[in-house]
């Protein structure tokens, strides 16, 4: 059945042990009962929706949160089993689960493995316990080491570690120490995400910084951390393939790349977003509502116009270091890239923020330069028509 369409599935787990100060995602601590009820509801959504996707083969699954590992391994195993019963999962599908230190012991990780999970994403954020406390993380570096070792012991051979730069009180040196700590692990991770902290309004951290209780590194240091990340990781054998993501060859996160290349994906769970065909929709953010009726939560049903598809093609694709393909643009929309975006491209190539890349067969690609990545919002906004 090679004619089946490829699909990615995202499962949202809106629970965590404690909300981190910088987090503006849909997540909060909850009791055992709520977690169970939610997983039941989620499994119901999985079962009920599955029928609509008979023509699809699932090429990646991502269980994100929140902290999915805050949920018991039995429930998680049941969820993944339900998923497999409803959907056709490709044998080589990438199946990732997000894990936080101090929430996953060996048993849990082993159970994930048994359920077919083949990629782990571990949230370290910093190797400095002081920094971890400052942003409200509930674990220490030592606990990360333990979780990481457990993962390797359980046979996970595709592991991502999340780190963060531009944290409150963080110096360039301290950040480099974190990077170094990750790179000198006995078996270093295959994938590293390094996010430069974005202060989001409404978060606890935002409040603390506004009140002057915490101080963020200046922009100069922030950019220096970002630059050094690229350089150091490159030396260590990781290539940057997206604004914040670095991987050893062949270990790029397939699921996330799907978002940037507009592969179809189905988001299940509270607040989860989907793109099917040229329809974007998502579930409502209310946990209470979701528990009552997991199937009745779809909002923002939107049919993308050609114009909107072009916009997405550009501002999503440009997140990737390889950028967007001009040929593909032509194929999809029947128009030359330059016919639509000539002026913007000219302006920003001249400013050194965009450049053309000619890959292998002479395929013309347009990508952000390193400097362009720093200010990508400014550039991407111009690709809105």
């Amino acid at each position, binding site marked *: 059945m090679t004619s089946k369409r490829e699909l990615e599935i995202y499962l*949202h787990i809106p629970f965590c042990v404690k909300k981190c100060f910088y987090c503006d995602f849909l997540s909060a601590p909850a009791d055992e009962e709520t977690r169970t009820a939610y997983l039941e509801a989620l499994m119901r959504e999985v079962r009920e929706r599955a029928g609509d996707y008979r023509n699809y083969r699932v090429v990646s699954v991502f269980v994100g949160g929140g902290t999915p590992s805050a949920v018991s391994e039995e429930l998680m195993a049941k969820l993944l089993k339900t998923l497999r019963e409803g959907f056709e999962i490709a044998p080589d599908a990438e199946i990732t689960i997000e894990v936080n230190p101090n929430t996953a012991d060996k048993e849990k990780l082993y159970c994930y493995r048994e359920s077919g999970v083949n990629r782990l994403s571990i949230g370290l954020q910093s190797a400095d316990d002081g920094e971890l406390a400052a942003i409200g993380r509930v674990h220490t570096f030592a606990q990360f080491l333990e979780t990481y070792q457990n993962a390797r012991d359980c046979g996970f051979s595709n592991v991502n570690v999340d780190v963060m730069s531009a944290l409150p009180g963080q110096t360039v040196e301290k950040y480099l120490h974190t990077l170094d700590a990750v790179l000198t692990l006995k078996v270093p991770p295959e994938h590293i995400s390094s996010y430069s902290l*974005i202060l989001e309004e409404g978060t606890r951290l935002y409040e603390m910084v506004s009140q002057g209780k915490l101080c963020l590194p200046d*922009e100069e240091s922030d950019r220096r951390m970002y630059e050094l990340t690229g350089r150091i990781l490159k030396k260590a054998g990781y290539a940057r393939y997206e604004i914040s993501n670095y991987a050893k060859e062949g270990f790029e996160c397939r699921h996330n790349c799907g978002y940037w290349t507009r592969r179809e994906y189905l988001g299940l769970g509270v607040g989860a977003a989907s793109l099917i065909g040229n329809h974007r929709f*998502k579930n409502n953010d209310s946990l209470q509502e979701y528990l009552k009726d997991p199937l009745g939560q779809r909002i923002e049903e939107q049919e993308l116009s050609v114009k909107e598809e072009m916009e*997405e093609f550009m501002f999503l694709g440009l997140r990737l270091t390889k950028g967007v393909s001009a040929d593909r643009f032509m194929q999809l929309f029947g128009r030359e890239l330059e016919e639509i975006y000539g002026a913007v491209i000219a302006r920003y190539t001249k400013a050194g923020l965009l450049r053309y890349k000619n890959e292998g067969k002479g395929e013309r690609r347009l990508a952000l330069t390193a400097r362009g990545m720093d200010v990508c919002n400014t550039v991407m906004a111009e690709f*809105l028509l």
Partner: protein
Amino acid sequence: MAAIDQGRIRNFCIIAHIDHGKSTLADRIIEKTGLLTSREMQDQVLDNMDLERERGITIKSQAVRTVYRAKDGEEYIFNLIDTPGHVDFNYEVSRSLAACDGAVLVVDAAQGIEAQTLANVYLALDHNLDVFPVINKIDLPSADPRRVIDEIEDVIGIEAQDAPLISAKNGIGIEDVLEQIVAKIPAPSGDPESPLQALIFDSLYDPYKGVIIFCRIMEGRVKKGTKIRMMATGAKEEVVEVGYFGAGQFIPCEELCAGMVGYLTASIKNVKDTAVGDTVTDDERPCAEPLAGYKKVQSMVYCGMYPADGAKYPDLRDALEKLQLNDASLNYEPETSIALGFGFRCGFLGLLHLEIIQERLEREYNLDLVTTAPGVVYKVHKTNGEVTELTNPSNLPDPSEIDYMEEPVVSAEIMVTSEFIGPIMELCQQRRGRYLGMEYIEGVRALLKYELPLNEIIYDFFDALKSRSRGYASFDYDIKGYEESKLVKLDILINHEEVDALSFIVHADSAYERGRKMCEKLKDEIPRHLFEIPIQAAVGGKIIARETVKAMRKDVLAKCYGGDITRKKKLLEKQKEGKKRMRQVGSVEIPQKAFMSVLKLDDK
């Protein structure tokens, strides 16, 4: 309609300092004279523009005719002529006063006499009006009618012992006011058989009737078919309709005779032809002389107005055209700015007038505007003997061609309680004021007299005055004339490019200070770009101040959560939307409000 006995007509106005209750008293008079039922009463019948109500200021003078049955059993016709309450409209006030025979002076029982009270009373006395006082707001806890009565007698010198003590708001004492109007305001004089001589005190453009002229018939008569001529503008037309003013409506009648106040229409297309203060006469039997006091209205304040969206230029032009139909004191001519594109240089009576027009353009015509800093009209004396009027700083000739420059100066009167005299004098000093003198009024209050350059008071003087006196100072001024002054053009360079729309004329001694503040302000207003932006102030090519907007280094959405692309797109859209409201100067995007930032440079 039978001829009305002149002896039963009372043409009067109400004068007051702002907020002393003029409009409320007008409402009560209309109510008590019973032309309208309470239900028909809008809260403030005379102010029928939304804008006026919100600002609490009467902009256009209007008139209303009511019938009062007095205690002597006779019916009297009251023509109440409303006057604008702001110094910007002093000329209009003077013409409205000229249409009256007397004035009711409203004074707040708590606040007593204020700067505008005096200015208005003197204006009324200048027009030989009989003025009688009314003490309003007597029900306020802080009311002190005795003190205010003494103050009126001492300071103004008019009899006030039997002034009605009223509360217009609560309808107390209104009968008393009505009786005094009958008793103290003289009936009009004038001979209905003389050649027509009518004073235009306002006009209004109506899309169906054309211009509606508000007038007071001084001599003679006018009716449908009379061929009239405006003596100053020379416009001639045949009268189509005459009538008087019901509350909020026009009521046609047979004819208007000497002593009456009413309106006439004559298929006139433009209010420019019916200038306030002009005399209407019978073209076939003209009067010998026009009425005294006509002045051509002159714009005192100019600014550039540009559509935020360049494509809306024709809309702006249409809107200005329409507004001008109703507002002869609004001037405009097309101009082009390198920074702002196509727009208009507009002339106004004053800053309030400017703000009102700006708001009307934005509100009634849905236009998004960029307005440049307002300036006054300077006189440039060139070395070749030529004298030009400068309304746009960009047009200042090369300094080598300038012999000297003059700027308009006003005589200002500021009423303030004695504790604030110090700070107010300091403010006037800062604004290059020339101290003329001070008079104490019953011990605790003083009337400060200054000469001030108009360009020092048009921006934020009133705000500064209020903030330095905890809101107690009141202020009034009159244009005195032109004086030679050491003026320079201050230019602003953004990223080394001169931004014409930000240039302004300033006194040489304040150039450095203003330039520095302007740079600081712009530094805050201009968002960071991908490159560093120097902001410089220069006089005659010499840089006198500089600030720098640092380059933007980081503008990233690091994480894109769970494929929620819509959320990310909204963020980008917001960013793009913000950019739309910017003006591109060279490679720099300048927010529209930055062009107004020169207005708010006062530190306090």
